[in-house]
């Protein structure tokens, strides 16, 4: 378990750049992730957000929960808007019309906005090498529109467009590995994080923000509403995701892999799946299939860390 010692609150900045009064569900660990990222980045940031849960809960005209510059344009273009903000600022600094304050350009979106509809824009932004940070808040489905499946929905999870029925076991495909796609673009920094491990998350975001060039942080964001767990269990389930190897915490710096939290021997995946209503229908066979896959992927990852 992460060393959450006494006086933990003194280790992070007090100021909330993502303010209370937002309209996220009770126990939304994605809102918590946004809060932690906002603390890590501070006030010197420009945020380009995709359409999604976090955009909706934080920007109902005429209100805003953002105390940093923030723009929302559409669903699939957060990375492109962030690219434009970064390039525009770069030009203005070079032409002497703005002073260089080292402002961080953040593109943020959910799993759908990142690995489905926004994949093209993100890939383009990575390839062009913009100096920006992209954070994916992955709650493993299109939650804002009512829990529909995305390519980030894990195998066997029930969603409204991949329901568990007589013929289908929920989601029939395996979760798209977005961090690996980011690594394949040869960007300087890629990391996974989870709001259940706040200091690990904050450190990674701070590191990513300092990187020159594109950086990508993929945050597992537990959604009690969509995952069908009681709201108070959001942090607890996130820990299980990491401890069972379903969502390992690692970073890839200049292509070099490193586990930032070595959980030792993996707990059985069943412990993570059983408490979630979206996996309620899984048979022992399906759980075994999932266990096999998780173990394989984790082993592959461990090998990469030795290279």
């Amino acid at each position, binding site marked *: 378990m992460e060393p959450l010692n006494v006086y933990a609150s003194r280790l992070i900045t007090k100021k909330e750049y993502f303010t209370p009064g937002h309209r996220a569900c009770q126990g939304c660990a994605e809102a918590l992730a946004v809060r932690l990222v906002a603390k890590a980045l501070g006030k010197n940031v420009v945020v380009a957000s995709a359409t999604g849960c976090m955009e909706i809960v934080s920007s109902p*005209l005429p209100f805003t929960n953002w105390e940093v*510059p923030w723009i929302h344009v559409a669903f699939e273009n957060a990375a492109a808007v962030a690219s434009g903000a970064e390039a525009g600022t770069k030009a203005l600094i070079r032409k002497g019309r703005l002073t260089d304050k080292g402002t961080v350009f953040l593109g943020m979106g959910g799993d759908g906005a990142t690995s489905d509809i926004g994949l093209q824009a993100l890939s383009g932004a990575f390839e062009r090498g913009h100096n920006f940070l992209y954070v994916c808040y992955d709650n493993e489905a299109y939650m804002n529109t009512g829990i529909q499946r995305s390519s980030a929905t894990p195998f066997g999870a029930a969603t409204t467009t991949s329901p568990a029925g007589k013929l289908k076991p929920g989601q029939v495909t395996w979760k798209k590995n977005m961090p690996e796609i980011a690594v394949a673009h040869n960007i300087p920094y890629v990391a996974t994080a989870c709001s259940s491990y706040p200091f690990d998350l904050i450190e990674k975001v701070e590191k990513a923000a300092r990187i020159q060039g594109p950086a990508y942080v993929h945050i597992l964001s537990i959604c009690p509403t969509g995952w069908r767990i009681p709201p108070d269990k959001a942090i607890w389930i996130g820990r299980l995701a990491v401890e069972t190897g379903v969502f390992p915490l690692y970073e890839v710096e200049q292509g070099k892999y490193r586990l930032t939290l070595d959980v030792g021997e993996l707990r059985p995946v069943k412990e993570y799946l059983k408490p979630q209503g979206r996996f309620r229908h899984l048979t022992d066979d399906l759980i075994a299939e999932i266990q096999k896959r998780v173990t394989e992927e984790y082993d592959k990852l461990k090998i990469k860390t030795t290279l």
Partner: protein
Amino acid sequence: MGERVGIEVSLAAAEAVKMANVDVVAAYPITPQTHIVEHLSELVADGELDAEFIPVESEHSAMSVCCGSSAVGARTFTCTSAQGLALMNEIVFIAASLRLPIVMILANRSLSGPLSIWNDHTDVMSIRDCGWIQVFAENGQEVFDHVLFAFRVAEDPKVSLPVIVNIDGFTLTHVIEPMEFWDEETVKKYLPDFKPVNQLHPDRPVTMGAFGLPIIFTETKKAQDEALIKSKTEILKAWKEMGDLVGRHYQPVETNDLEGAETVFLTMGSFGETVSLAVNELRSRGKAVGQVRLRLWRPFPFEELREAVKGVKRIIVIDRAISYGGPGGPVASEIRAALYKERTMPAITNFLCGLAGRDVTPDDYIKMYEKTEKMTKKKVREEDYIIYGVRE
């Protein structure tokens, strides 16, 4: 006075963008816009234009990048045609609602299908309601002038709206014309530095693009509509000032040969020049024909149009786009709507022609005129629109 240059209009357009000292160019290649963007990238590569040139991976991203860059206060330009415009459609509407002063040259080309690289106005008609200021250029000089006009109007704090300059693909983009470039000093007088009304900057954090609940949405649309309508004041000012500086005086609706005209041709874009040859010929034959050229498409110039066609008995509206199963070409529909409440409504004959680059000669216009003469004589109920020259 600036120098007179014989150059391909696309290159001149790029030179005008360079003179405007643009900060960001984000574009994706599509025929027939390519030469504009290629030349801009050359200017940047050679250090002649200090700008970020962003070769985006799609037009949707082009307009999105433009939104981001305009929002931080950078002078922003893009350029596209037909399918590219269709792909960025979503963001075009949003850019106007965000009141971001992006300038776009639209090298008019036909929308698929079938696929066509050739020129007509179906692309710009597909975004009629997008909320951008929209103007049409008829020749190379007008293209050059209107690039500078576009930045001037878009970025005016009383306007703060994106602007499209429509230039006919191939007919203008790929043709060499003699044009008078402006000199640096004149550009400086005409085009001030960009000072955005709202800007994404940590010193003053603002939220752009909040979502609109039903309770407030109608008010946001009213505000946007008013902004576009009121922009006409600054548009007229910008044209007047340009006239004073370079001697070319543009109007929302331009006319020629109206004395004694009972019939007028109405066009938008480069076809106007060809029509004027037909008008000359017809007038030499004693026909009472004149010409109206619509330059400002949005905000629609109602007063100027009504004034221009006062006393006219028939308007031959040339459309270069079609509304399947609808009341005809978009321009004719709007002309009819604009004149509906006038005391006397002229007959309106709508010819759809020049679709996807099909040539329309002065002779064709003369034939169109003769057809309307016959219709006037016969006094039959006329068709709403005629697709001119279709082989049946």
